């Protein structure tokens, strides 16, 4: 029962509660191939939790996730990565002691054979694979503009570079769908412009299907075709940037969030 549409990612009413807190309720999403979808909402709305549910960090309480016609609900994260879902992390999770190049090479891991015996004996195929991995890693570093820092330790990169390295690493898994969690956070305006260009380039060159969480409305409204808005775990709006921007529920959610600072907003929801 594969979906008749050309949807690569099909999320059907997934829910997740932490104790009494309903972090995500009845979340639905259909991503056509090659689309760029924005996922926005005030702090604590449940956006990162959606990513964690899709990538298997948490199991949904109910609902299902179908990737390229294949049910991936409840699978372990590494299998989901193998199935073609890759992500970046809001709170950067690079392999700090490893070199920039190794971080990206690790991303290629999931498509490689990596047998222990082969690595020790260094068979011709193993050598070929290591070369192919290095070549694609360097190419991706070129795409995100980090080729010059390939040999540095990842932990020594500036913040913006670390975010771009996370994107390169995620791309290295050759995903069908790429999940970006606040890639512009902590970037200056110049870096944000470059990031926007990078995302556009990923769509053109890699035919990437992207789900983007972003707080910077300039970035989101500018590049996303459609946007889903979450608040308190519920989807309160979905549509084109124009539709979303004029939606009263969205304005209400954001004004509410602005009125009392984001943190107290998140805290107050425990009572709901």
């Amino acid at each position, binding site marked *: 029962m594969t979906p008749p549409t050309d949807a690569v990612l099909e999320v059907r009413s997934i829910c997740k509660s932490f104790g009494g807190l309903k972090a995500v309720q009845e979340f639905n999403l259909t991503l056509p191939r090659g689309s760029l979808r924005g996922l926005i909402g005030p702090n604590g709305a449940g956006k990162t939790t959606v990513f964690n549910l899709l990538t298997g960090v948490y199991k949904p309480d109910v609902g299902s996730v179908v990737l390229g016609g294949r049910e991936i609900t409840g699978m*372990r994260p590494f299998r989901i990565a193998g199935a073609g879902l890759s992500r970046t992390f809001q709170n950067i999770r690079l*392999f700090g002691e490893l070199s920039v190049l190794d971080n990206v090479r690790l991303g290629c891991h999931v498509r490689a054979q990596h047998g222990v015996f082969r690595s020790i004996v260094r068979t011709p195929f193993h050598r070929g694979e290591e070369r192919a991995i290095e070549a694609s890693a360097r190419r991706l570093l070129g795409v995100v503009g980090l080729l010059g820092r390939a*040999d540095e330790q990842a932990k020594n990169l500036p913040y913006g570079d670390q975010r771009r390295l996370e994107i390169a690493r995620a791309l290295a898994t050759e995903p069908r769908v790429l999940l970006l969690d606040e890639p512009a956070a902590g970037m200056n305006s110049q870096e944000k412009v470059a990031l926007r260009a990078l995302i556009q380039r990923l769509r053109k060159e890699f035919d990437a299907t992207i789900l983007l969480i972003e707080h910077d409305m300039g970035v989101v409204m500018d590049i996303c075709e459609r946007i889903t808005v979450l608040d308190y775990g519920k989807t309160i709006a979905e549509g084109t940037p124009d539709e979303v921007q004029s939606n009263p529920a969205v304005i209400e959610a954001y004004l509410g969030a602005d009125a009392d600072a984001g943190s107290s907003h998140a805290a107050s929801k425990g009572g709901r």
Partner: protein
Amino acid sequence: MSTLRSRSVEMTPAALPTLVRSVWPLLVGVGVALALQFFAKPVIGDFYAKVLLDIGTSIILAVSLTMVNGFTGQFSIGHAAFMMVGGYVSGGIVYYGSLLAWGSADMAGGALSSMIDGREAPFLTWGDALFAGSLVAGGLVAAVCGYVVGLPSLRLKGDYLAIVTLGFGEIVRVLIQSQTSDVLYTVEEVKETAWYLMPTKVGGALGFSGLPFYSSLFWVFLGVAVTLLVAYRLKDSATGRAFLSIREDEIASEAMGVNTTQFKVRAFVIAAFFAGVAGGLFAHSIGVQLNPGELGFLKSFDIIIMVVLGGLGSISGAAIAAAIVTILPELLRNPEPLLKMWPVLAGLAAVLLVAAVVCAMTGRRARSLVAWMCIVLTLLGLGFGARAAAAAGHNLGDYRMILFALALILMMILRPQGLFGVREVWDRSLWKGIADSFRAPPKKGGTNK
């Protein structure tokens, strides 16, 4: 776009040159082992040959544990237990194998084995072959134990591995101590005993006596060469990057498609294999007796110290630390070689001190210099201390656990990542990092974590 697989096939090099490139490091290893056996040993004499032999065994142990505690960031504290398993399996095979094959458990080794000196001895005999086979068998049994111990505990997140490996070590020790009985001395006795009872005839609490001394510089350093080669090639491959990624960030590693449980178990099993081999080498070394008390928790702790001092994850660091930790008690017992070098050491310390002061005055960081100076001075102090202690009838070597504990504490303060961190002696970035610490302090901010 093409798949990684098809691109790999495209880039696959020709078979013959690959074979050469894959094999020559091993040949170099064999060459070094032969050279140590036939050229170095006569020069340095039996005593230092024995020290070198102990260093070799320690290197195998430290480098193999590095794969678990260093690469994957898990915490095993029962490495000596796998050594014990391998030692008893290998010992049993050699002892009873020799008894059955040649009617006596005495050496049937050739020039490659340790006791027979001189070139008249045949180069390689069936005794050597039996010994080599027993090492592999000991390693394999240890690896199976590693799988059984590792699989359940590595599936869980958290420090279960530490608890389970500690428990495993105690179980092995107690089982051998209390559930095995005296070694059989004659072929008749062996023939009268049911085959399934043979594993219990390994000596109990008294230890497995009568093992022939097959472990020579050649065999030990062949083992070292293989261990180093395997560790290095694993580290420098997709498998090794998967190991290291687990230690760096398990969640990210899993999200990038690494089956973290599987890779943790792989590392653990490989490490157990080499610990088993080291156990076999230990069992057949001159001057030791294989007994359950010898390879308990304290031995595991020695190995952990080597790994931590070397820098969790550095193969060369672990090897160097293994050498230091093995030599130090010898040096403390007999500090004269160290004391002969005292003008050199004192001069070195003075130079480092001046450099550190100059660096500090010009606003540069000089922590590394101070650290190195401390190390040099400590060595000197230990030398004099050892001589003074010897004059008073003590042996500072007996206090090695205290000294190592102090060294570890100092290390944590001055250089928490160990000698080399995850990097190797030959990594340029390591030396660049050390050189940078002498330059102007880095700008605040910029990095994040």
